[in-house]
């Protein structure tokens, strides 16, 4: 298979959706048909049909059982963070032309989010350079860390790495979490405090980082 390293272009996505939507498990007739419609993606479609067929072996009955077992009163941390990403993206889409203001120290959710414009690869690259996990960087992006607990050295490191003014980074961390004016999305495994934020140390300790990585971040 040929690995796809970046998000698939729209036309390829269209072709792959068409293949995935048509049947539970694709067959030769379907693949031939879709390849006729999208001949430029013959190889990708073949690889994807194979991936779908293998995936179909992992029974949907198990998925249905997992969905049926959900507790509707519990919101998981992962869902909570996904809601934050939704709100951040919504904000970015709604105000795409807003310019960074270095003096903006507002604690409203309107502060510039220097992470919002990062592409997926940029986001990953930032995490690598910081020697941290994506989960930890997502907490930075989603303002899930108590701003007062972040060390000055850490804030400066983030600002330098993002090539953003320190004021903007500080204002971002200090701003209210997006969507905080509306319903709150709390971690399900603990009582929330101050909008569900963790201290810097808690965030470092609970992001799947090695001991060495944790020490390095906390020492900044």
């Amino acid at each position, binding site marked *: 298979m040929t*690995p796809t390293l970046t998000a698939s272009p729209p036309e390829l996505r269209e072709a792959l959706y068409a293949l995935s*939507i048509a049947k539970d498990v694709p067959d030769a007739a379907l693949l031939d048909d879709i390849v006729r419609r999208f001949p430029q993606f013959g190889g990708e479609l073949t690889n994807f049909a194979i991936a779908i067929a293998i995936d179909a*072996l*992992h029974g949907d009955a198990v998925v249905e059982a997992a969905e049926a077992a959900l507790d*509707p009163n519990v919101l998981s941390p992962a869902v909570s963070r996904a809601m934050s990403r939704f709100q951040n*993206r919504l904000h*970015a889409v709604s105000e795409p032309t807003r310019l960074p203001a270095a003096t903006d120290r507002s604690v409203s959710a309107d502060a510039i989010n220097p992470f919002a414009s990062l592409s997926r690869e940029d986001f990953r690259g930032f995490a690598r350079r910081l020697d941290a996990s994506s989960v930890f960087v997502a907490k930075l992006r989603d303002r899930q860390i108590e701003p007062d607990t972040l060390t000055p050295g850490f804030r400066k490191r983030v600002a330098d790495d993002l090539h953003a003014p320190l004021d903007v980074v500080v204002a971002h961390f200090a701003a209210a979490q997006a969507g905080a004016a509306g319903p709150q999305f709390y971690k399900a495994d603990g009582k929330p405090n101050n909008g569900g934020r963790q201290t810097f140390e808690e965030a470092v300790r609970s992001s799947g980082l090695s001991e060495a990585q944790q020490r390095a971040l906390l020492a900044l």
Partner: protein
Amino acid sequence: MVRTLQKIGEDGPLVRPDAVEAQIDAALTLNPQSLRARLAITDPRDADHLRSETLVHLVRHGRRTGDQGLISLVLPVLLARCEANLIVKVPDGQLPEAATVREDILGEFSELFASDGTGKDPDELDFYECKFNRAFRFFRIDVVRRETGLLKHVAQMPEPDEDGEPEPHDEVFARVSEAFRSPAMQDGDVFRSELHDAILELPPDERDAVILVHALGYQEESDDPGEETAATRCDCTGRTIRNRLTRAATKLARFKEDL
């Protein structure tokens, strides 16, 4: 009347299944309290259970009308279902950072709703109002393949040069084909899960040959130059396909004992 979909398929605009259309019509009339009660139903066999297709429509409706309350009520429920799906389909141990990948998928998916109606593909979510599980399957596999593409750069090994015509392995592959043809049932899931893992462990060339011939139903090769076969799909000869199947059959031999 529910808003018609904009995405154009091979036969014109996409159309929701009738049952989805009817449920959306009814769901749009629910007050918040009734909607909350319906959202709390997780058993899909319950007549009042709201389909994921319906939830997608409700979130998009909230997005279009600026109804943040509706979004906040419905989107977390939909994302929780997606998370349950991901825990099964992208389990810990399958990828080095499975939890991070699951989180990426969930986050990227939530962003689709924020970007709905904008960008290069403003109607992408139309697919999810027609066949949610199959559309989400694409989304999930697409991200997982990108992630595994970053991790695996397997050097292509030279194809072993085997003399003579490979032996057929009908017994092994009869069971494999049957697993792909039969619908997934709870009691057959152990076998299918083991087969899934065994197929994933095959070298990519052998895995592709097995799936193309025994899951998708391609001929190994054909005398008709216009016919697509496993050989044409893999851009190799029919003999190469048979050699790959022979090597795969040896590795999958234990599955014939279940016949």
